[in-house]
């Protein structure tokens, strides 16, 4: 399954998610840099990723120990935005990262 062309992965609020072992997440000068370790994560051979501020706030909570609904609750308590909007952000990012094999569901 090629990253970038697959259909969106199903993301469940009752599931737990954590960074895949196929990437290395680095913090360089305050920027989160996601470096693919294995082939098939990016579309190109030299591709790295970073997340915007919203993405980073979500990423920091995806530790494989909290259910996504608990992450949503934490984000809702911290950010002044309608819960529905935060949920859309959360699901959108997690779907994208799972599709790119950067994030995996904990089984």
């Amino acid at each position, binding site marked *: 399954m090629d990253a970038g062309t697959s259909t969106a992965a199903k993301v469940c609020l009752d599931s737990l998610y954590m960074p895949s072992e196929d990437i290395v*997440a680095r913090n360089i000068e305050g920027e989160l840099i996601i470096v*693919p*370790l294995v082939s098939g994560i990016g579309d190109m051979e030299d*591709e790295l*990723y970073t997340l915007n501020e919203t*993405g980073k706030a979500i990423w920091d909570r995806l530790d494989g120990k909290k259910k996504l609904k608990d992450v949503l609750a934490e984000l809702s308590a911290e950010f002044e935005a309608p819960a529905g909007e935060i949920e859309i952000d959360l699901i959108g990012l997690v779907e994208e990262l799972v599709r790119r094999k950067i994030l995996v569901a904990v089984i």
Partner: protein
Amino acid sequence: MVEQGNPYIVRLSSQESPLWETTRPVLMELDIELTERCNNNCIHCCINLPADDSIAKKRELSTAAIKDILKEAASLGCLTVRFTGGEPILRDDFEELYLFARKCGLKILLYTNATLITPSLAELLSRIPPLEKIEVTVYGMKKISYEAITRTPGSFEAAWRGVNLLLEKKVPFVVKGVLLPPNKGEVEAFENWASTILWMDDQPSYSVFFDLHSRRDEKKNKTIRKIRTAPEEGVKFLARRNMQHMKEMKRFCSRFIGPPGNNLFSCGAGMNGGCIDAYGVFQLCISLRHPQTVYDLNRGSLLEAISRFSPEVRAMKADHPDYLSRCAQCFLKGLCEQCPGKSWTEHGTLDTPVEYLCEIAHAEARQLGLLEEKEMGWEVKDWRERIRNFSEETENGCRNVYGS
């Protein structure tokens, strides 16, 4: 670039990284010469020792020491490490070091002759990609020319075997050439073949003007001096794609040309980067091994080398009278490769002008129309106007120096 349909994740390519516009990591890039030994014995090479040189092998950094350096490099923010040599794959622990570096989140730029690429290494490079295109130097398109340069029987077949393994496993790589007497008639064949390689975005680059041996081996230097391309011939070769060359030179000259004064360093050596030799000595660049400009990592740290030592070296000033009367006032500095590293390899100093480089820069400037015949760059007073006129010439008005 923001992903379409998803504003959270940003894809970065090495050329377009929007990161660190204001604050850069202490270390951005690092070169590591994993070994000075090589399984080839190229006539022009500035750094090869025999593959079986047991004394050199014994002195080389241990696996653990290189891992410590890689760890520290990653902790300082380094994104790309170049593995070079010698032939880096010659090290018994190459795969271990490669994997370790990748697991530190480093991208690896591998310089190799491809002769030692095995099916298992190609498989590893395919499964865990280096994230930078491998750079393979190709010495000739025929066995007779290739091995006249490498002086190693069987190296031609070994290199093609390696290249074919990379192609088979779809490991991205580019090829580079060297212009030497044995392969001068093969440029077209080389470029035609290179254009069939999927990952070649442009024509292959060529080494045309060769450095002397960076350990100042006089025996090797005698050979290198003999086979060096004459300045006019090399300049003509580099300008063979006239329009493209002129376009690049106009852009370059408008930005980088001008007298350097008594500054020794006008390049970026040692700024957010550096090089470590096979024995753990930090250098600002790969050719600068002058004792005053190197730092022993066995008695210090990469952080100290980059943040304290490099700026001190970069602040050094030239005081050689010839440098001050010529190079310091020469507007061709951007075209000229005169630098402390070259002075070191040629003269064992930091600032003695290197005549060969001076001749190349002047040949280039004459070809571009920036200098008249017999005029010297340091004598020209109206250089700003000349550069302006040159850079502003239209594509169509671009001079065609060979009438072709």
